[in-house]
């Protein structure tokens, strides 16, 4: 038993949790005693400190930092012998593992777990909204439901699931044996469940869960009960995870590409994650800052956002929104660009054609990264900020439609005269193309200030964000999960069930979110548990459709679980794709490549006779073949 408690793992983690809580308890009591605060036992303060200390102790107990501690203490480190790589049973996914393929699956499965929870919260909201008046929940519970729904799906689903998919396929795509920093990679993953469980645990806090929306505008968020602290701190853990992963991707992409893999021979998924990682490392510290402001206001009375206290009464309420959106607008691209990458992979392979305008596709990603930082205040057209700021923000917001349009038009041109395989990943890709276009169009409408002044914070906004995040991001996630399922699990999924899943999702999605445009323009505010009688019919239809949408997920779950357990064995390259991840067995060998591949051509040379992207020979052996002339950049 003692050995188990000393070795890294769940037993030691549990022990460290207890120590972490005792530490938080002792620290608070000590400081309150020294400062003559009464009473010295303050549940609010203890919880706040424990929410910081316990997760950190947990991580150390679990063993994510053992190597660093040995190294820092000057002890003999235990070099990774890679014996723990790969996963033999499901239990291996519950251990700290530095194999990017295991971490990728850990990420994806964890994220989908939170998708289900977030979806269930949405079902509860829709049950309450099915009729006007209050039926199932109280107003404060309702405020908690949509706050946790949005926070889980943004911070624990869309952002990390893309990191998970890329974790698995990106090193394979660039011909690398692993990520650049495998231990950091493991730490990034284990920060995630902490953030998610913290958000869920807020339901147990006195006063209920955090209830100020995922935007947590001050001074509402600084005045709500204890549950709000759970959000404030959970975001720090999710953000730290994001930043660490993004750094890892950047270094991996810059330094670990196989010989011959120039930037302009990289698959667009790699480009997309490169762009996303730039956004993450630059933007995420801003949301960390915004939540630290709130934390300091809440826990220590800093009065950043109190406009009515102090001689100058100079708390600045609007500053919160500027700092928050300086992250949270780029965050919508963090939640979309990796999806763009997935769609480029799926469309090229399934249409059997090169991506149309490959270089413009890469440049438009970078353009979105740059422009994405210039538009944040379009979320604040009715916030009371200086009115002139609205004009440049309208213009930059509209300009983002240009690189986004380039991508959509290029995808359409990729379809043109192709030989389309209409299987499940392709259906989701095509569904994405149409639904995301709708979301993009309503986005340009929202950029137009006078219209936005009317529909801000109405259901029109709810419709818009679900068309870009559900019809956009989630459809690309489904496309990606189906597309790489054979590679990740070594099994084929059931394509008929996959198509059923697509059509159920596509139809119920549109019935759920389409009418929200209308009731939004008619003036139904979002974030209300009760609404005027005039909206009753549409809300009933929306609620019924949303239950259908929820149920359609069960088809997906069944397909995934049953196929992973007993689907037919997948061939190495069932889609006849050119990119490197398909040139190794399914699932890939423990170190990805038995021989370092050499890249000799572009990633999408479909239709070019005899085209190859990579060959498994050393650069010296690899002679340029005739196909290289047609690839985008012989560098």
């Amino acid at each position, binding site marked *: 038993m003692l050995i188990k408690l000393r070795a890294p793992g769940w037993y030691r983690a549990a022990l460290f949790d207890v120590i972490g809580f005792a530490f938080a308890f002792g620290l608070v009591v000590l400081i309150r005693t020294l400062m003559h605060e009464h009473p010295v036992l303050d549940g609010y303060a203890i919880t706040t400190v424990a929410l910081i200390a316990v997760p950190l102790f947990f991580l150390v107990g679990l063993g994510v930092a053992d190597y660093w501690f040995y190294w820092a203490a000057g002890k003999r480190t235990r070099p990774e012998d890679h014996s723990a790589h790969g996963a033999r049973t499901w239990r291996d996914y519950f251990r700290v593992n530095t194999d990017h393929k295991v971490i990728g699956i850990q990420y994806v499965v964890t994220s989908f777990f939170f998708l289900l929870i977030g979806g269930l919260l949405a079902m509860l909201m829709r049950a309450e909204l099915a009729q006007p008046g209050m039926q199932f929940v109280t107003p404060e519970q309702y405020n908690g439901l949509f706050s946790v729904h949005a926070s889980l799906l943004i911070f624990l689903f869309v952002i990390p699931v893309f990191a998970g998919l890329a974790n698995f396929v990106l090193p394979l795509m660039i011909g690398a044996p692993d990520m650049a920093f495998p231990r950091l990679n493991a730490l990034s993953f284990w920060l995630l469940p902490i953030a998610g469980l913290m958000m869920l645990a807020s339901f147990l806090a006195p006063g209920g869960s955090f209830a100020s929306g995922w935007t947590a505008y001050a001074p509402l968020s600084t005045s709500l009960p204890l549950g709000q602290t759970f959000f404030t701190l959970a975001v720090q853990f999710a953000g730290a995870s994001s930043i660490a992963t993004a750094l890892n991707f950047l270094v991996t992409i810059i330094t670990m590409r196989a010989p011959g893999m120039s930037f302009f021979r990289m698959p667009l998924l790699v480009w997309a994650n490169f762009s996303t990682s730039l956004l993450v490392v630059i933007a995420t510290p801003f949301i960390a800052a915004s939540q630290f402001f709130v934390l300091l206001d809440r826990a220590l009375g800093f009065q950043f956002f109190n*406009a009515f206290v102090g001689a100058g009464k100079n708390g600045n309420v609007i500053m919160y929104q500027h700092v928050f959106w300086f992250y949270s607008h780029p965050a919508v691209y963090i939640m979309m660009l990796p999806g763009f990458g997935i769609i480029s992979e799926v469309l090229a392979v399934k249409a059997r054609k090169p991506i*149309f305008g490959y270089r413009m596709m890469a440049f438009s990603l970078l353009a979105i990264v740059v422009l994405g930082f210039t538009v944040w205040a379009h979320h604040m057209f009715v916030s009371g900020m200086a009115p002139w700021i609205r004009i440049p923000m309208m213009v930059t917001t509209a300009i983002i439609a240009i690189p986004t349009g380039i991508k959509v038009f290029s995808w359409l*041109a990729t379809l043109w005269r192709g030989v389309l395989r*209409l299987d499940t990943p392709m259906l989701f890709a095509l569904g994405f193309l149409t639904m995301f*276009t709708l979301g993009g169009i309503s986005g340009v409408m929202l*950029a*137009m200030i*006078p219209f936005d*002044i009317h529909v801000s914070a109405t259901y029109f906004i709810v419709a818009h964000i679900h068309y870009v995040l559900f019809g956009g991001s989630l459809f690309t996630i489904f496309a990606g999960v189906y597309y790489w399922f054979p590679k990740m699990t070594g099994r084929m999924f059931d394509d008929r069930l996959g198509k059923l899943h697509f059509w159920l999702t596509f139809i119920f999605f549109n019935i759920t979110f389409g009418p929200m445009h209308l009731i939004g323009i008619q*003036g139904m505010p979002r974030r209300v548990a009760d609404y005027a009688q005039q909206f009753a019919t549409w809300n009933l239809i929306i609620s019924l459709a949303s239950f259908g949408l929820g149920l359609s997920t069960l088809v997906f779950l069944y397909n995934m679980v049953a196929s992973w357990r007993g689907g037919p064995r997948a061939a190495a390259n069932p889609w006849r794709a050119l990119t490197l991840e398909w040139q190794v067995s399914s699932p890939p060998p423990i170190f990805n490549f038995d021989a370092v591949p050499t890249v000799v051509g572009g990633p999408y040379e479909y239709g070019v006779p005899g085209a190859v992207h990579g060959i498994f020979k050393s650069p010296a052996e690899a002679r340029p073949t005739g196909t290289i002339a047609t690839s985008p950049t012989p560098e």
Partner: protein
Amino acid sequence: MRKHPVVQLLLIGAIGTAIGLPIALAIPWFPAQAATQAHRIDTLYHVLLIVSVPIFVGVLSVVLYSVWKFRMKPGEEGKDGPPIHGNTRLEVVWTAAPAILIVALCTYAYTVLHANEVTKPGERTVNVIGEQFAWYFTYPSSPGKSVVTQQLYLPKGQPVVFKIHSRDVIHEFFVPAFRLQLAAVPGITTTLRATPDRLGVYSVVCNQLCGNGHATMRATVHVLTPAAFQAWLAKQPVQPSPGYSFSSTGGGAPAPAPAPAPSGKAGNGSATAAAGKAIFTGSGGCGACHTLADAGTTGAVGPNLGIRLVPDAKKRGLPLAAFINESITKPNAFIAPGYPAGVMPQTFGQTLTATQIQSLVAYLASVTK
């Protein structure tokens, strides 16, 4: 005769637009138009629809046409498409055309914005004050004095400038019939302009999550003929202008002209039931959430005070006056059965003076016996 695929596609797109556009324009998108601003915004939206429908139909047409024409047929399992890597001319077109469209739309949107927000001669100032979870509206009469109401009354045809304030968290003053909204931000004054142009009663909505009672923070706006408006205004009692903050030193946040008189502890006058009634319907904002027959209020967030005060005081085991006082200053001490805790603001003990609270107690005790 077989047509070229691009011609076929254009044909499909044109037919789709011809069907889709009338449908999109026929949908009754908007609620009643009750301000000149609303007309311009609705037109802007319809122009946006006219631009958007062909774009969406175009994208949809390409996808559906490709699925129809280019799907893999039996025997094509090993076949690839032609290796087309790009077309510079096409790419320039689909970069430049949206750019031109966007410049045009932004210019148009700017002209609408300017027309809606430009200062108009003869503007009437109305102060809008939001607090958890009620609106009130003040019409300045003489320096430091205002008419204070919980329902908004406006004359038709006269431009109004709203000076918007918050006493606690951020609220948002939203009148869907005007197509206008703007945040009420603690510490600053925000400005919104509207010119009502249609008689009627429309809703005022708080459109920024402000706490447990957010969904119930509603009021109505009555657009009257100018004569009816003047008659209404003349009938209203004039009282000291309420402050815009919870500051214990009194006075408002950045003061609009005329400067609001201190709402603070210096408030003089004896505690009378009449003063209590004015506070109940006016600066206290009680009537927004509570029905009280004597005061003519119909709020439905909290209990009906005309009916519930006496029995609930018995349940609580307190004399009526003590119970009313406790319920104002510590609303969670006793929660009327069937109502959630924590909805009523717990700050009235600080925001109202002792005299004001005594007046309210005197008034409520007098009308519920």
